[in-house]
């Protein structure tokens, strides 16, 4: 430990046995490194807290700019192309496997490699800091992204999700597809891309997560060499005010699916939650509605669910909800059953035995997250971007009690603040 620079804050976690090196680079980039010398693979992710929901923003107190939907994702595609060569080609010479993705609230560039980590990291830091957008290169991407958009429109699960978001949120940009629409991306110009880039790819807004067979000191040296100092900006990304209530309780779309597909969302008024609360949310939904529950077996016997049934907790800026999803002959009947079960649990509480089952499962999966370098680096990068704490989540899973679970349950499922989204064949078909 002592051989490492005092620029790091070192954290050793007892439950997972992992050691992580944290630092904020002088340029403003936040860095977390988890060395796993016993592995061959190394993985790095360079990310910006910039996703599809950041479509209306101001810099250093200036005017707000509204940009076309899908531009964060478009920018991600175009950044791979530098003036002289394409980042994929540079990675290919090293045998590194590179990728990138954009979600609602972040854009991440990543690679995995088993040799020449230093060179691969240099490529990553270099190309992400070297935008090159021209009329011609921007136009070329439209065909590719239009096909990506069309691909998702053929996915009924994707449709049911975005319909649900529209039913739950009146104005929040969570309603909009990350990739935008064929129309919105046609409005994207090099100037707009540069404006978004110059705002959100400010080092102050960026993080680097690394895990695997790496030396933290070497990583820092490469960062010193390659991270470019820029004026640190104050970015404000705004979302329209949300009154915390769903827009409509039901939404439906015709789609040629053999069995109706549904999502049922329970909206919570948005607030910053603790790691412990989020872990509890995961545990209570499994204890009450997961395969260990009586509810699950009963619904299986009533033929209202199949093994695809599940429930997920969604949490990002301005959005907090619990979403049930699956396929069912009668999503409406299933919703009524879920409502009834919620009322029963509000009255009688969660079974302590089932809470313990779900808590132990949660602890097991939290520990399992640390099996792979890519999961570790991704989680660390998220922590740096969003102020979450992966290790705190493990600790919470080891400690939480059923009393806390019951308390959280009361906040989580408000029957009058839910929406059901269904896609099914037309009734006459």
């Amino acid at each position: 430990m002592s051989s490492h620079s005092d620029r790091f804050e070192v954290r050793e976690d007892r439950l997972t046995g992992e050691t992580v090196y944290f630092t904020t680079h002088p340029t403003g980039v936040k860095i977390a490194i988890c060395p796993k010398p016993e592995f061959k693979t190394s993985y790095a992710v360079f990310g910006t807290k910039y996703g599809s929901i950041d479509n209306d923003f101001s810099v250093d107190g200036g005017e707000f700019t509204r940009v076309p939907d899908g531009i964060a994702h478009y920018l991600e595609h175009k950044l791979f192309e530098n003036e002289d060569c394409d980042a994929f080609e540079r990675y290919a010479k090293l045998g590194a496997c590179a990728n990138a993705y954009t979600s609602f609230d972040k854009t991440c560039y990543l690679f995995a490699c088993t040799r020449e980590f230093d060179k691969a990291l240099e490529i990553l830091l270099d190309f992400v800091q070297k935008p090159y957008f021209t009329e011609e290169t921007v136009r070329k991407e439209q065909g590719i992204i239009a096909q990506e958009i069309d691909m998702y429109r053929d996915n009924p699960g994707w449709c049911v999700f975005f319909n649900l978001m529209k039913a739950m949120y009146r104005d929040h940009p969570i309603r909009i597809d990350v990739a935008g629409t064929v129309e919105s991306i046609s409005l994207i110009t090099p100037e707009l891309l540069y404006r978004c880039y110059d705002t959100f790819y400010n080092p102050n807004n960026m993080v680097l997560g690394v895990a695997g067979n790496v030396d933290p000191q070497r990583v820092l040296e490469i960062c010193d060499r390659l991270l470019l100092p820029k004026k640190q900006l104050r970015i404000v990304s705004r979302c329209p005010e949300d009154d915390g209530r769903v827009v409509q309780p039901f939404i439906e779309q015709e789609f040629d699916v053999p069995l109706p597909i549904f999502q049922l969302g329970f909206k919570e008024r948005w607030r910053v939650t603790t790691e412990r609360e989020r872990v509890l949310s995961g545990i209570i939904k499994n204890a009450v509605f997961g395969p260990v529950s009586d509810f699950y077996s009963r619904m299986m016997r009533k033929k209202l669910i199949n093994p695809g049934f599940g429930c997920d907790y969604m949490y990002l800026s301005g959005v907090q909800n619990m979403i049930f999803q699956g396929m069912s002959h009668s999503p409406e009947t299933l919703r009524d059953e879920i409502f009834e079960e919620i009322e029963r649990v509000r009255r009688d509480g969660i079974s302590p035995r089932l809470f313990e089952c779900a808590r132990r499962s949660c602890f097991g999966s939290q520990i399992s997250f640390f099996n792979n370098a890519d999961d570790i680096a991704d989680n660390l990068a998220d922590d740096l971007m969003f102020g979450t704490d992966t290790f705190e989540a493990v600790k919470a899973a080891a400690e939480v009690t059923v009393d806390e679970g019951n308390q959280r349950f009361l906040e989580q499922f408000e029957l009058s603040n839910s929406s059901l989204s269904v896609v099914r064949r037309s009734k006459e078909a």
Partner: protein
Amino acid sequence: MLNNMYVSTLADGVTFRAIPETRFKNSCIAVHFYHPLSREEVTLNAVLISLLRHSCAKYPEYNELRRAASMLYGADIDTSVSNIGSCQMLTVGIDMIDDRFIPDGECISGECAELLSELIFRPAMGDDGKMFREDDLEVTLRNAEERIRSRVNDKAEYAAHRCTAIMCEGEPAGIEPGGYLEDLPGVTREALAAAWKKILSTAEVEIVMVGGADYKPVERIFTREFKKTDRCRAKLPEPPVYREVTEVREITERMDVQQSKMIMGMRIPIIEPDDRTMAARLMSLLFGGGTTSLLFNNVREKLSLCYYCSSAYSRSSGLLFVRSGIEESNFQKAVDEIKRQLAIIANNEFTDDEFNASKLFALSAFDNISDSIGSIEQWYAVQHLDGCVRTPQQAAERMKAVTRSQVAECASLARLDTVYLLAPEISEESGEPEGGGEQ
């Protein structure tokens, strides 16, 4: 990693393979059964494997079994069925966190191995004392029906299934591992019990364990269980034979889709245990295996025809499929370009950079295997059928030795068999495919 691999034979045709690894948080144990693939039994086996994870004699109720697994810190019971060449592999496995990560010093690995053996050797019994319960079967059959019917929801997968079924009709590769709707009514408790007894008795078995948990108790448990089983191992069938292509079939099917899904099915007369499978794998990587490939860089990046265009070669069947999602009006352009790229490989006209990048990509993939517990487990599971067990490092050495001309030879042997297109419906007014008019 594999210097300390432990291998023993527990019974006739039952191999136990342990790879002790303390680098992971988890351990896994998977029991694989290999037996001849047949169209008649495939649906039965798909249902069987779902039933085995549904319950067991000790935990006859589904939720009781899930609770028992959850109390073992979320031990994950997984079953699967896959077709490999002319064989089928049925798997029942369990994945658990290592004892050293359990807060109170509790030991669960032995219990997990016992639970796995319960699932395999003591399935739930009906009131009549016979194997499997009627209501479990009812639930499992309904789930199987819904699963099979919902295949169509993933249009890219559906198109790939359709192309394979049409192109490989009557061949092992054309058999759908998940089973067939029309065969579900014929699945009975009696048939399932007979099938499971037969598999336990005649299938080749490989038990693979990877992780930090002590393997000795696991070996003891499975030795004990297989001693009680009447073993009479059946011979596995020969690998599939290459079928000559006489004419290229072009098939278009229409459905309510936005984007057309194109599949090009090809045959290569290189099937395990052929020495050239490694070269064929490299050829497929160079052709369409990721961002270093010719298909990615030309069909997508240069011509902007698609978001994805990739190829995958199966060494157990000698089949190669190219998949892409395109605008229907670009269909011929995409087909021509894909053929042109294959010809470039066959004529040995690819660049050294392209060749080296694909090889490095392949070597990294072999390296990566040792860093994932699931990949190590799968590596040995599939190797069982190769008749010769190699480590990923040994495979990487063979990959290193592959030359440009060997890769070119593999491409020159590839024969296009079927071009399948799943396209949007023709709208009645215009006679044009829906949604395809703008470009």
